[in-house]
Protein backbone atom coordinates (compact mmCIF):
# COMPACT_ATOMS: atom_id res chain seq x y z
CA UNK A 1 0.00 0.00 0.00
CA UNK A 2 1.37 3.37 -0.94
CA UNK A 3 1.01 6.52 1.13
CA UNK A 4 -1.66 7.95 -1.13
CA UNK A 5 -3.89 4.89 -0.77
CA UNK A 6 -3.54 4.97 3.02
CA UNK A 7 -4.42 8.68 2.98
CA UNK A 8 -7.54 8.04 0.88
CA UNK A 9 -8.60 5.19 3.15
CA UNK A 10 -8.22 7.37 6.24
CA UNK A 11 -10.00 10.31 4.60
CA UNK A 12 -12.91 8.03 3.69
CA UNK A 13 -13.24 6.77 7.25
CA UNK A 14 -12.99 10.27 8.73
CA UNK A 15 -15.61 11.69 6.40
CA UNK A 16 -17.98 8.78 7.02
CA UNK A 17 -17.62 9.38 10.77
CA UNK A 18 -18.34 13.10 10.29
CA UNK A 19 -21.44 12.32 8.24
CA UNK A 20 -22.69 9.84 10.85
CA UNK A 21 -22.27 12.50 13.55
CA UNK A 22 -24.32 14.89 11.41
CA UNK A 23 -27.02 12.24 10.95
CA UNK A 24 -27.30 11.73 14.71
CA UNK A 25 -27.66 15.48 15.25
CA UNK A 26 -30.43 15.49 12.65
CA UNK A 27 -32.19 12.57 14.34
CA UNK A 28 -32.27 14.65 17.50
CA UNK A 29 -33.95 17.50 15.63
CA UNK A 30 -36.27 15.02 13.93
CA UNK A 31 -37.51 13.64 17.24
CA UNK A 32 -37.67 17.00 19.02
CA UNK A 33 -38.52 19.53 16.27
CA UNK A 34 -41.18 21.87 17.67
CA UNK A 35 -43.41 21.48 14.62
CA UNK A 36 -43.93 19.41 11.50
CA UNK A 37 -42.07 21.82 9.19
CA UNK A 38 -38.89 21.45 11.25
CA UNK A 39 -39.16 17.69 10.94
CA UNK A 40 -39.53 17.94 7.18
CA UNK A 41 -36.43 20.16 7.05
CA UNK A 42 -34.49 17.61 9.08
CA UNK A 43 -35.67 14.77 6.80
CA UNK A 44 -34.60 16.77 3.76
CA UNK A 45 -31.06 17.25 5.04
CA UNK A 46 -30.96 13.64 6.23
CA UNK A 47 -31.63 12.47 2.69
CA UNK A 48 -28.86 14.73 1.34
CA UNK A 49 -26.50 13.25 3.93
CA UNK A 50 -27.47 9.73 2.90
CA UNK A 51 -26.71 10.56 -0.74
CA UNK A 52 -23.33 11.98 0.31
CA UNK A 53 -22.63 8.90 2.41
CA UNK A 54 -23.40 6.63 -0.55
CA UNK A 55 -21.01 8.58 -2.78
CA UNK A 56 -18.25 8.36 -0.15
CA UNK A 57 -18.92 4.63 0.18
CA UNK A 58 -18.54 4.39 -3.58
CA UNK A 59 -15.07 5.97 -3.38
CA UNK A 60 -14.11 3.95 -0.32
CA UNK A 61 -15.02 0.54 -1.73
CA UNK A 62 -14.21 1.47 -5.37
CA UNK A 63 -17.62 0.12 -6.34
CA UNK A 64 -19.15 2.57 -8.82
CA UNK A 65 -22.67 1.13 -8.73
CA UNK A 66 -23.33 2.92 -5.41
CA UNK A 67 -23.49 6.10 -7.50
CA UNK A 68 -26.62 4.81 -9.25
CA UNK A 69 -28.18 4.08 -5.86
CA UNK A 70 -27.37 7.68 -4.88
CA UNK A 71 -29.10 9.02 -8.01
CA UNK A 72 -32.25 7.00 -7.35
CA UNK A 73 -32.27 7.97 -3.68
CA UNK A 74 -31.88 11.67 -4.50
CA UNK A 75 -34.85 11.58 -6.88
CA UNK A 76 -37.10 9.73 -4.45
CA UNK A 77 -36.10 11.90 -1.49
CA UNK A 78 -37.06 15.00 -3.46
CA UNK A 79 -40.50 13.56 -4.17
CA UNK A 80 -40.88 12.63 -0.50
CA UNK A 81 -40.02 16.12 0.69
CA UNK A 82 -42.50 17.66 -1.74
CA UNK A 83 -45.24 15.27 -0.67
CA UNK A 84 -44.65 16.04 3.01
CA UNK A 85 -44.62 19.80 2.39
CA UNK A 86 -47.91 19.61 0.48
CA UNK A 87 -49.33 17.47 3.26
CA UNK A 88 -48.46 20.04 5.93
CA UNK A 89 -50.01 22.79 3.86
CA UNK A 90 -53.21 20.85 3.21
CA UNK A 91 -53.58 19.79 6.79
CA UNK A 92 -53.83 23.38 7.99
CA UNK A 93 -56.07 24.85 5.34
CA UNK A 94 -59.14 25.14 7.52
CA UNK A 95 -57.47 25.49 10.86
CA UNK A 96 -58.16 28.50 13.04
CA UNK A 97 -54.46 28.91 13.86
CA UNK A 98 -53.96 31.97 11.67
CA UNK A 99 -57.26 33.30 10.35
CA UNK A 100 -55.63 36.18 8.46
CA UNK A 101 -53.86 33.68 6.23
CA UNK A 102 -56.69 31.22 5.79
CA UNK A 103 -57.49 30.46 2.17
CA UNK A 104 -60.85 31.43 0.82
CA UNK A 105 -62.72 28.40 -0.37
CA UNK A 106 -63.14 27.86 -4.06
CA UNK A 107 -66.59 29.08 -5.24
CA UNK A 108 -66.84 26.30 -7.82
CA UNK A 109 -66.22 23.71 -5.15
CA UNK A 110 -68.77 25.31 -2.85
CA UNK A 111 -71.28 25.24 -5.68
CA UNK A 112 -70.63 21.54 -6.19
CA UNK A 113 -71.07 20.88 -2.49
CA UNK A 114 -74.38 22.75 -2.50
CA UNK A 115 -75.61 20.71 -5.44
CA UNK A 116 -74.65 17.51 -3.68
CA UNK A 117 -76.41 18.59 -0.52
CA UNK A 118 -79.61 19.42 -2.38
CA UNK A 119 -79.34 16.13 -4.24
CA UNK A 120 -79.35 14.24 -0.99
Amino acid at each position, binding site marked *: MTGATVFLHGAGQVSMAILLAGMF*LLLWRLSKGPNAADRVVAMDLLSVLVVTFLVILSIHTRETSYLDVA*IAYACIAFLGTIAL*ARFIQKGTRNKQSRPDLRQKSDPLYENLLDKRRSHD
Partner: protein
Amino acid sequence: MIEYLTGILMVLGSLFCLVAALGVIRLPDTLTRMHAVTKAGTLGAGLVVLAHAFFHQQTGIFLRAGFIIVLLLFTAPVAAHLIARASYRSGVPLSGRTRVDELKKTALK
Protein backbone atom coordinates in the same frame (compact mmCIF):
# COMPACT_ATOMS: atom_id res chain seq x y z
CA MET B 1 -1.76 12.75 -6.48
CA ILE B 2 -5.41 12.31 -7.39
CA GLU B 3 -5.89 10.39 -4.14
CA TYR B 4 -4.87 13.43 -2.08
CA LEU B 5 -7.23 15.71 -4.02
CA THR B 6 -10.08 13.20 -3.62
CA GLY B 7 -9.47 12.79 0.11
CA ILE B 8 -9.30 16.52 0.78
CA LEU B 9 -12.47 17.26 -1.22
CA MET B 10 -14.26 14.39 0.52
CA VAL B 11 -13.42 15.55 4.04
CA LEU B 12 -14.20 19.17 3.13
CA GLY B 13 -17.59 18.17 1.72
CA SER B 14 -18.54 16.13 4.74
CA LEU B 15 -17.47 19.00 7.02
CA PHE B 16 -19.88 21.26 5.12
CA CYS B 17 -22.60 18.64 5.65
CA LEU B 18 -21.81 18.64 9.37
CA VAL B 19 -22.08 22.44 9.42
CA ALA B 20 -25.52 22.13 7.80
CA ALA B 21 -26.60 19.64 10.47
CA LEU B 22 -25.28 21.95 13.19
CA GLY B 23 -27.29 24.77 11.60
CA VAL B 24 -30.43 22.65 11.81
CA ILE B 25 -29.72 22.08 15.50
CA ARG B 26 -28.70 25.59 16.50
CA LEU B 27 -30.66 28.12 14.42
CA PRO B 28 -33.77 29.65 16.00
CA ASP B 29 -36.68 28.99 13.62
CA THR B 30 -37.81 26.91 10.65
CA LEU B 31 -36.91 29.38 7.91
CA THR B 32 -33.33 29.90 9.14
CA ARG B 33 -32.85 26.15 9.57
CA MET B 34 -34.00 25.62 6.03
CA HIS B 35 -31.50 28.21 4.86
CA ALA B 36 -28.67 26.21 6.46
CA VAL B 37 -29.88 23.00 4.83
CA THR B 38 -30.16 24.43 1.35
CA LYS B 39 -26.80 26.14 1.10
CA ALA B 40 -24.35 24.18 3.22
CA GLY B 41 -25.96 20.81 2.49
CA THR B 42 -25.90 21.27 -1.28
CA LEU B 43 -22.32 22.58 -1.25
CA GLY B 44 -21.12 19.64 0.88
CA ALA B 45 -22.83 17.01 -1.25
CA GLY B 46 -21.60 18.72 -4.42
CA LEU B 47 -17.97 18.66 -3.22
CA VAL B 48 -18.14 14.96 -2.38
CA VAL B 49 -19.68 14.10 -5.76
CA LEU B 50 -16.93 16.17 -7.43
CA ALA B 51 -14.34 14.17 -5.48
CA HIS B 52 -15.94 10.99 -6.80
CA ALA B 53 -15.78 12.28 -10.37
CA PHE B 54 -12.08 13.11 -9.97
CA PHE B 55 -11.31 9.73 -8.46
CA HIS B 56 -12.84 7.43 -11.09
CA GLN B 57 -11.84 9.21 -14.27
CA GLN B 58 -14.32 7.70 -16.71
CA THR B 59 -16.83 9.37 -18.99
CA GLY B 60 -19.81 7.50 -17.56
CA ILE B 61 -18.89 8.43 -14.01
CA PHE B 62 -18.39 12.07 -15.01
CA LEU B 63 -21.85 12.15 -16.57
CA ARG B 64 -23.51 10.52 -13.59
CA ALA B 65 -21.71 12.78 -11.12
CA GLY B 66 -22.73 15.81 -13.16
CA PHE B 67 -26.31 14.55 -13.15
CA ILE B 68 -26.29 14.22 -9.35
CA ILE B 69 -24.90 17.74 -8.94
CA VAL B 70 -27.48 19.22 -11.32
CA LEU B 71 -30.22 17.24 -9.57
CA LEU B 72 -29.16 18.61 -6.17
CA LEU B 73 -28.88 22.16 -7.48
CA PHE B 74 -32.35 22.02 -9.02
CA THR B 75 -34.27 20.14 -6.34
CA ALA B 76 -32.89 21.87 -3.22
CA PRO B 77 -34.39 25.33 -3.93
CA VAL B 78 -37.73 23.87 -5.04
CA ALA B 79 -38.05 21.73 -1.91
CA ALA B 80 -36.95 24.63 0.31
CA HIS B 81 -39.48 26.94 -1.31
CA LEU B 82 -42.31 24.44 -0.75
CA ILE B 83 -41.36 23.82 2.87
CA ALA B 84 -41.11 27.56 3.55
CA ARG B 85 -44.50 28.18 1.99
CA ALA B 86 -46.10 25.33 3.93
CA SER B 87 -44.56 26.41 7.22
CA TYR B 88 -45.55 30.05 6.81
CA ARG B 89 -49.08 29.16 5.83
CA SER B 90 -49.51 26.74 8.67
CA GLY B 91 -48.66 29.55 11.08
CA VAL B 92 -45.29 28.38 12.36
CA PRO B 93 -44.04 31.21 14.61
CA LEU B 94 -41.04 33.18 13.34
CA SER B 95 -38.01 33.76 15.52
CA GLY B 96 -38.36 36.51 18.13
CA ARG B 97 -35.53 38.43 16.48
CA THR B 98 -37.36 38.80 13.15
CA ARG B 99 -37.54 42.48 12.18
CA VAL B 100 -39.58 42.50 8.97
CA ASP B 101 -42.38 40.16 7.91
CA GLU B 102 -43.29 41.36 4.44
CA LEU B 103 -45.66 38.49 3.75
CA LYS B 104 -47.89 39.61 6.59
CA LYS B 105 -49.37 42.42 4.47
CA THR B 106 -49.45 40.82 1.06
CA ALA B 107 -50.82 37.72 2.80
CA LEU B 108 -51.51 34.51 0.95
CA LYS B 109 -55.24 34.84 1.31
